């Protein structure tokens, strides 16, 4: 079993209203040092088998086809 973590984040320059709202809420809690907050998504995916290269290729295809909208989002794949 190969365990992977996919992180999807908004591209630079894409406005993130939810991140802005969270940033404001952190300020309201008294965290004065927060420069900015960007919200993203994390997917933990388990791939059957031990073929690491094959899994990486599959995970990349999953990101391109479904998990990320590459118009507005970047993704990264980590296999520890």
């Amino acid at each position, binding site marked *: 079993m190969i365990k992977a973590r996919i992180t999807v984040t908004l591209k630079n320059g*894409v*406005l993130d*209203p*939810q991140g802005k*709202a969270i940033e404001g809420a952190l300020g309201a809690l008294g965290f004065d040092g927060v420069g900015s907050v960007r919200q993203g998504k994390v997917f933990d995916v388990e791939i059957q088998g031990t073929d690491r290269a094959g899994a990486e290729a599959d995970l990349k295809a999953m990101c391109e086809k479904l*998990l990320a*909208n590459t*118009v*507005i989002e970047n993704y990264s794949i980590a296999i520890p």
Partner: protein
Amino acid sequence: MKSAVVLLPGLNRDRDMIAALTRISGTAPLTVWQTETQIPAVDLIVIPGGFSYGDYLRCGAIAARMPVMRAVAEKARQGVMVLGVCNGFQILLEAGLLPGALMRNTSLKFVCREVKLEVANAGTAFTRNYSQGQIIRCPVAHHDGNYFADAETLARIEGQGQVAFRYAEGTNPNGSINDIAGIVSERGNVLGLMPHPENLIEAAHGGADGRALFESALGIAA
């Protein structure tokens, strides 16, 4: 003119859309379930609004990967007219049939109200019964209608007259870039828009400003 309405789990404006198409064209549209891989010969395919797949992952993302959307894409490629309203617009973007993306409203609030729209291009097959620059009323009801495209894409769609509708008179409800409310494909046979023209087609709705969109698409003279 024959029409078809695509049905997916979680859509909830399908009955309004079917009623509007039936009332305006005089014939009930066919309905096509998400698992269908073929769509019968029709002149107009409509993807209605709602919350397909509970808006999981991203609005329209999962619906856009269902078999019926491959059939819709094939029909669009053949030149059949395709209309996506609200969640239908989100699905068309996720399916890659229109450029750009729809993001969370800048207010972070679900907005349900009437807005004003400017007909930004009255030369499309969906807008020809309006006049250029005409201001119409139209209801909106959405949480993720904030249109975004990168600078290059935006310049292209603006330059090619692909913006069909803009929010007018300061009524932009979602922060959409350039006040964009609806866009057509490069070829002009696919329209996606966030507002709901199907909910303003007769006096009982309080107005009929949305009717001309369907009459345009269905080839009914003004």
